[in-house]
Structure formats: C-alpha cells, structure tokens
C-alpha cells in the first residue's frame, strides 16, 4: 500500500508542476517506476487493477514526453516500447486516453521519420491503421498522428515548402513536436541542395535564400561553401558532374567484365 501512496504522490507532484527540469523529473520517474515494480505493474499483467494500470500508463507517457523535451531519443524509445502493451489492453481493463496516446505515437513516428527509419515508420503506420479498423481517415485527421504522416508524404513527393510551412509556429500540434523541427529543417535543406545541384545550371544568391529557407544571404554563402559551390557575381554555380569521364571508363570496364562472365558461363555449358 505504501508503494501505491508514493505513486500517487509522485503523480500529483508531476502533474501540478509540468515545467520541472528534466533531471528532477527523471529522478521522480525512476522512483515512480520502482513503486510500480513493487506493485508488479510496470508491465501490465492480467490481474493488475485498472486504476494502477492507468497510473502506470500516465507515468510512462509523462516520461516519454519529458525525455523528448530533454532531447533524449533513446529514453523516449524505451518509454514508447514500455507503453506498447498498455495501448494494446482492451478498453474494458483500461480506458484508453486517446489524446495522449496519439500524441506519444505521433512523436514516435516523427522520431522514426527524422532518423530515416522508414521501414519502422511504415510498420508502425500499418499497425495503426489496423488498430483503427482500417479507418485511415481517422488517423490522418488526427492532429497528432496526421502530422508525421503528412510530413512523410510531402518529403517523399518533394513538396518541401509544405514541410517548411508545417514546421512554423502554430502549425505544430504541440511543443514537443517542435523539437524535431531543427532536424527536419537541416534534412530538407540538404535534400533541396542536392536536387538543386542537378536541376539548375546556376542560381542567383537572392533566390537561393528563399529556396533553402535561409535567413540571410550571408547564411547562403556559408551554406554554399559547406557544399563546395562556387559563387561568382552573386550567382551560385554548381560543380558540374565530373563523373562523366569516370563513367566512360566504367562502361568499358563493365562490358569487359560482363563478357568475361559470359565466356565463363558458356564454357561451363558447352
């Protein structure tokens, strides 16, 4: 019973003061987890009472959100995996809290997206749409879940301006989602840069600024230096693909290799 009381105390402490620093929050959370362990409720078992289950879930969710705010993706992933069994419980034993569930799941999707783990992203998505009974409008319509899904689609299409707009203040569903903006920005910037190299013969500095979503022309110049672009007369010239020659060599080498291979195969057949 003591454990339960400690638990209630910690939860109320966490809830009343949402802006406690991460270090403090995490020490509280580990205490809470010990209490949960004593109650044998860190992972749901069939005979855990439902009010304890709800508390356990809340603690994990809180931990997930606070670790995202502290930019600790590993801890976040751990919390998400621990939450998974809670989310799979039937609503009869644990009344689902849709909003925070979707918030955490959405964040997890976004994390996968920014880390380039597309396979897992899509696996997760598949699970979500099955869980919703194939009602994918419901998922896309959701504020939290729809956000990473839309971002993924735009990134794949190449509508980077929409991604950019979606990351502005007011568009982001909650402050935790803003954490990823930085990563996403640099991600789309390098995507744009690599496609620009191929698509434009040259670009004026001024329009490059808007193209790359940079703040000033100085930032453009810095960026251009990083990527090794030449700047002449306030125009950016992209290094032409010098691979032509190497490619030519490749072709003859490839042909020789292939022909040798055929010869070998023929020999085994004849």
């Amino acid at each position: 019973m003591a454990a339960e009381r400690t638990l209630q105390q910690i939860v109320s402490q966490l809830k009343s003061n949402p802006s406690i620093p991460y270090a403090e929050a995490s020490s509280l959370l580990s205490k809470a987890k010990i209490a949960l362990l004593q109650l044998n409720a860190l992972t749901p078992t069939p005979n855990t009472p439902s009010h304890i289950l709800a508390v356990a879930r809340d603690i994990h969710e809180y931990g997930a959100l606070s670790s995202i705010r502290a930019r600790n993706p590993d801890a976040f992933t751990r919390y998400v995996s621990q939450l998974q069994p809670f989310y799979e419980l039937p609503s009869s034993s644990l009344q689902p809290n849709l909003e925070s569930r979707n918030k955490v799941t959405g964040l997890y999707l976004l994390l996968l997206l920014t880390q380039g783990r597309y396979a897992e992203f899509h696996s997760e998505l598949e699970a979500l749409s099955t869980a919703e009974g194939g009602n994918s409008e419901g998922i896309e319509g959701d504020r939290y879940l729809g956000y990473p899904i839309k971002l993924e689609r735009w990134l794949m299409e190449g509508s980077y301006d929409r991604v950019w707009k979606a990351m502005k203040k007011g568009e982001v569903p909650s402050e935790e989602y803003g954490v990823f903006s930085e990563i996403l920005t640099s991600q789309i910037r390098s995507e744009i840069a690599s496609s620009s190299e191929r698509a434009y013969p040259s670009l004026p500095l001024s329009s490059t600024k808007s193209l790359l979503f940079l703040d000033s022309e100085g930032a453009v110049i810095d960026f251009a230096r990083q990527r090794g672009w030449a700047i002449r007369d306030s125009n950016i010239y992209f290094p032409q693909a010098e691979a032509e020659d190497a490619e030519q060599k490749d072709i003859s080498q490839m042909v020789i290799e292939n022909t040798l291979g055929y010869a070998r195969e023929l020999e085994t057949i004849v």
Partner: protein
Amino acid sequence: MPGKTPNGKEPVENGIRNNQDVDMTDEKSSLKGKGKKGVKEGEDMTVVVPPSKTTKQSSAPPPADTDGDVDMDDSDKVEDVEVKVDPVTQAISDVKSNFALLDRAVALFDARFSLRALRSISSLRKRLTPDILSQAIAESYPATTSSANVARHLLAAIGREDVTLGQQSSAEMEVDSEPKVPAKNGNKKEKEVKEIIPEIDIFLGILIQVHLFDSKQYQKGANFSKYLSDRIHALNRRTLDPLSAKVYFYYSLFCEQLAPLPPSPQSPIVAIRPTLLAALRTAVLRKDIDTQASVIVLLLRSYLLTSHISQADLLVSHTQFPENAANNQVARFLYYLGRIRAIQLRYTEAHEHLTAATRKAPASSCALGFAQTATKVLLVVELLMGDIPERATFRAATMEQALHPYFLLVQAVRVGNLEDFETTLAEHVDTFKRDGTYTLILRLRQNVIKTGIRMMSLSYSRISLRDICIRLHLGSEESAEYIVAKAIRDGVIEATLDREKGFMKSKEVGDVYATREPGEAFHDRIRACLALHDESVKVCDSTFMPGFFDCITNLSFPQAMRFPMNQHRLELKNAQEAREREREMAKEIQEGDLDDDDLGGDFEGM
C-alpha cells in the same frame, strides 16, 4: 470448396484455405509432371483400401512392398465392394483404412504412409459426420486398454460421449455387405486390441478438427485443438511429425475465427502464439521440417493479421525456413515475406518473394484465391517500384474480375493522372482495405506525380511551373518547383529548371544507344537466361530427362547467341551413340529410383 468463388469474403484466408484444399487433392502433381494430375487424382480416389486387404497387410507388414502394387491388386476389389456398401459404411471403412497406413508408417518408419493417410482427408472431408466418426472410434478402440481414455476425449469433442467403446463391427455393416468383410473386420479387432498407436489418435483428432471446422463449431474446435496440441507436445514420435503440422494448422485456423476477430489485439490468435512458438522450438530441435514450416507460416500469418510487422520481421530474421519444406508452405512463406518487405519499403526484395510465391502457387483453379491475393500485392509492389505490370496479367480469365480495381489503378499510374488515381482510390477503397493493400497504394501518389512530370517533360520542350502545378493538381508553384527538382535529381527526367523565368526546360533526348542502358538491359536478360539455365540443369540432375536438357540449352539463349550453340548441337547429333548411352543410363536410374521419385512428391498435405 469455399475458395472457388473468386474474391471471397476475406481474401487472405481465402488463399490459405484454397491452397490447403489443393494440397489435399494434387500434392503429388504440383512438383512434377502436371500432365499426370488427372491420373494421380483418380488414383487417390481408388486408394480406398478395403479393410479386408489391409488387415493382412498390417498383420504381416511386407518388408519391401512398394505401395504401388498394393494399389494395383486392390483396385479391382474396391470396385465390387464399392457397389454394394452404403455410404456410411463406406466412409467408416475409408477412415479405418487409413489406420493401416498409419500402422505401416510407424512399423516401417516411413512418412510416406502418413502422407497418404492425410491425403485421403480431402475425399473423406465431405462425408464426415459425428456418427461416422464416433462409430469409427468405437469400433477401433477397445474399452479396456489405457487408450480408451483418449478415445473418450475424442468422442466428447463430437458430442458422442455415450457411445460405448470396443463395439464389434456395426450391425448394418454385417447386413449390408458381403459376409467376408465383417469376418475380416472382426479379425482386425483382435489385432488392434493390443495397441492403438498415437498416430491413429491424432489422425482421428485431425478428422474431428476438419469436421468441426466445416460445421463452423469454432469454439469447440479451438478447445479440442488445444487438447490435441498438448497431447502432441507430450508425445515425442518422429512418425507424428506430418500429423502434428496439420493439428497446429487447424488450431490456428479455429482461433482466427473466434471473436474478437483478428485485427483486435485480444484475438485468440495472439493467445496461441506462445504455443506455436514452443512448437516451433521443439520442431527445430527435432528437425521436424513439416511442423517447422507450417508453424512459421502460421506465426507470420498471425503477426500480419494483427499488423505486428516488426515482430514478424524479427521472426523471419531469427528463424530459418526449412529448405526442403513442402512446396505450398514455401509459397505461403514467400507471400508473407513479400508482404512484410513491401511494408518495410524493401520493394526489390518484396518483388522477388512475391514473384516466386505466385509462380509456386499451384496452377490448378482450386488455389485461385492464393494466386489472386499474391498477384494483387505483387502488382502494387511493381507499381511502387516504378514498373508498369504487363497487360496480360489482367487478361487472364481467372484474374480479370478480381484484379479490375488494380487495373484501373495501373491505368491511372501509367498516364500519371492524379485525378483518376484519386477517384479510383476513393471508389475501391473497401476492396483495397480488404486486400490489405490500401496503405501500400497510398504510397503510390508520388509515383503518379513522377509519371505525370515525366509525361510532361516528354511532351513539352519547355513548360512553365505554373502549368505543371495546374496539370498535376499540386498545391503551389513552389511545391511544383521542388518536386520537379527532386524528379531531376532522382533521374526521373532529364531537364533543367530556370528559377527566374519559372519554367522547366527538357533536355533533348539523346541517343539512347550511346548510353549504358542497352548494355545493362542486355546484361539483365543474359543473366536471367543463365539463371534459368542453371536452375533447369539442377532439375535435369534430379529428374534425368536428357531431351529436356537440350531444350533448355536451346531455349535459354537469346537469338544473338544461338548460332554457335546450334552448331555445337549439330556436332553432338553426330555423336549419337553418346546420347543413346546417356539416355539408357538415365532410364536405369529412373527405374531403380522410382521410390525416390515418389518421395520427391513430398508431403504437401498442409
């Protein structure tokens, strides 16, 4: 058979069921000689070994008697017995005739006999009733021995607890049939009083499972299957392997039908996963290929039904699918693997697996559901890879109707018409969701856009971004610019962008023959031909068909390379005697290894 209707209520399940139906009828034919199918099926029907004959067989098992001649001398007797006995008696004797096979399987330690017993299920299936089953049990089990307990369990499962065991052959049988039959039957009783082998228990158990499934008593079936699988787990007999694979198959099938139905995480199929995993572990340790293959497939199916993709992926990476598993299990495994890979965006692998799955699917019309389902996923994967599936796929009479929504989809993607794509998607959303391809199809949007851009770049030497934006229904000119830039980088089109004036200028289409493309295409084809040749040679090695070998060698080389090959063939023709010798040798081996050939037919009863 439910699966014969194309596009049944639940395609995946449909495929499986169909597949399984097929296995039961023509497992032999699926591996070799499709032409023989008719004959084989006929044989299956006449392998109704009457009890009289088998009694002799089982009482004194002939050491090296090939089953081929057993069938031979039976067939004529079967004819006259069949005319006289009534269907119930016939069914009972059919059931019991399998016991002899199982007996022999144990005595000779040869799985082939168990497989034959399993194969007969398909012909028995429609005739099974609780009465027939209970009578068969009552007649086979004596009331006194320890196995009576088992028999009571079996009877309870079909609601015939009151039947007394150890009956002599039923009265009607004695009345209806020739006097010699019951006499021999009585004889058999005495023999079997000594021991009832577990294989017979399990075989009867499978029959009961089949019956319960066909009569839709899922809950009862699941309970009974649990009892059965526990029993199997307790027994450690290699001769049980093919049978236990079947038991697990039905166990999982029952659980799938129980409420809450699969997508729900509370579905019973989640609950039986530990059982299946334990069975898998045991099967691997015991090198029980049948159970191993079928349990892996069942687990994958179960994971995919609840969309536990990562778990399924882990299972695949931590287990090794047995190489010489039955063909149909391989087909299913490849299908599930293809689906997992498609979800994980590993389209090339998915394409490979799904193509193999569709090819391995039995060609007969019974497995149509499986072929259709696999083809559907395959089509979507092809589209996702940027390929346009062949038109002929949609023309096949058996596929046309089921694939129609996908046909519309392909059309939309082919011309890059985003509007058509959206309408097709909206119209057939239910079909796609039912097929489990919806999330994959959603990913196609970008392919449609890419094709659209490609079409435009081919048609116009210069087009403004605004026009692109309008044609493709993109959000804004800015989006259009980024999308086109990405398309250029990805090599979809050859063009440049002019930012100031806001247009896309297509590069002159160069001479394709100056690039490496023709060389690559040629290389691909040659490689495919060589691979085909290699595989065919392997087949030749195992089947010894010298003429066939010539055929492939000629076939597997493209026009350009044929001339020297033909010359070589001419030389060979001169050396006729060499070929003659080869053929003779092959014949000898073929005759000597007839048994081996039969084995090659493999167990595909699942």
